[in-house]
């Protein structure tokens, strides 16, 4: 999957976000920041900041592990803070997350099920040695937007009747955004709301074993990033 497809998914995710406070996961979600409306969406990072600003100029900023005190949730990537930023400890940071105060999170996904289950942190058969803040994010955010490529690198579907990878949380996904389509969960049912014009509904269904219905407000869109067509 080329960079352009990631950018398309990120841009499409950003369309879901018009105001409020959002936490962006790692991977594709990180790219979403570039497409957000300036000043209207504030970014939270679980290591203890509300009001994440752009990265400092790498030519001017040298990371000294001894003195650096402002990074994102990677723990090592320097960031800046916006004028309305605040800092807090992990307890308050997860009060924001688990307590239901985030308007949305965009999170990378390995699999999503037709009931809104999310698998994003572990692969079957491998030792489970890291989960980070993903479970708290997904359990708490008012909206969970899963950002993922429609198929695995081996061509296997990721949007399934049931996840067979370890779950991050059950029934929490609100929106699925891939390079081909957008699905929304409404009253516990999964609906296709948007598809790119390069596919037919039958072709999409073939790549998407989950049960879903076509929404009343379904539409077909052109896949563009910054006015340019996307190469698949």
């Amino acid at each position, binding site marked *: 999957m080329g960079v352009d497809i990631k950018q398309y998914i990120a841009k499409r995710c950003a369309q879901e976000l018009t105001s409020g406070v959002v936490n962006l996961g790692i991977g594709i979600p990180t790219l979403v920041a570039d497409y957000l409306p*300036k*000043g*209207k969406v504030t970014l939270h990072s679980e290591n203890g900041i509300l009001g994440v600003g752009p990265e400092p100029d790498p030519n001017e900023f040298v990371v000294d592990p001894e003195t650096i005190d402002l990074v994102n949730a990677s723990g090592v990537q320097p960031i800046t803070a916006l004028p*309305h930023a*605040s800092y807090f400890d992990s307890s308050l940071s997860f009060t924001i997350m688990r307590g239901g105060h985030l308007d949305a999170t965009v999170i990378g996904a390995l699999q999503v099920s037709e009931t809104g289950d999310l698998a994003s942190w572990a692969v079957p058969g491998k030792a489970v040695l890291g989960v980070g803040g993903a479970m708290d994010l997904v359990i708490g955010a008012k909206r969970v937007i899963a950002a993922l490529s429609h198929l695995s690198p081996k061509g296997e579907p990721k949007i399934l009747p049931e996840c067979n990878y370890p779950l991050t949380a059950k029934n929490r996904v609100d929106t699925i955004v891939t390079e081909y389509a957008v699905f929304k969960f409404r009253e516990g049912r999964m609906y296709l709301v948007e598809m790119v014009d390069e596919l037919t509904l039958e072709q999409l269904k073939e790549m998407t074993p989950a049960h879903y219905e076509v929404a009343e407000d379904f539409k077909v869109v052109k896949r563009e990033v910054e006015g340019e067509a996307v190469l698949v």
Partner: protein
Amino acid sequence: MMNGTIDQIQTGVEFLNADKAIQRIPEGASIMVGGFGFPGMPRHLSKALVRRTELDQLTLIMNSLGSVSTLNALFEQNRIKKVIGSFFSTNKELVVAYQEGKVEIDLLPQGTFTEAIRLGGAGIPAFFTPTAAGTVLAEGKETRIINGREHVLEQSLTADVAIIRAHKADKAGNLVYKKTAQNFNPAMATAAKLTIVEVDEIVEVGELDPDSIGTPFIFVDIVVKREEV
């Protein structure tokens, strides 16, 4: 990555006067009220709450009510259904209303009260505490021996509304507290669907030290400046 200048920043926090802010409270609401004695008590919001006489069947969640309180009128006017807190012995109006069976009181140890609010705001609905084990305040509650000691299962608290007080707000809605006027206010801000804050002063975005902010704007809905009543 997203950038923004001070002018572009929109957090959705509203700046209203006390009466307009109190107008947002729904009928029969549960209302957390900040303050420990005088400091941190939202006096002007309390007065506005008393003025909005059609609001009744209210539940008040507040630590204590002293002998003289702006909120006493609510008891005289039979507008309070229930009170949850830790110390009401010295408030004559409330004691009378209780004795006449007009008000229900849920008494909690102060530490249980404050932690129940903090955890309510943090999405944690119940916790085991050693406080009150073996006392009348644990009667009817589930208990469990943990680490060889008896603990009581307490339910966390959330509310429809919090009316609180802070020292300063910036125009994004971030709050700074002062001295012993913090008390229950920062926790209450996190635990209500609608948080209304009374402040001494409103400053420009960027004027507050980001390390000094006690309540980030995400927990704030409406800011009321004290003199604008």
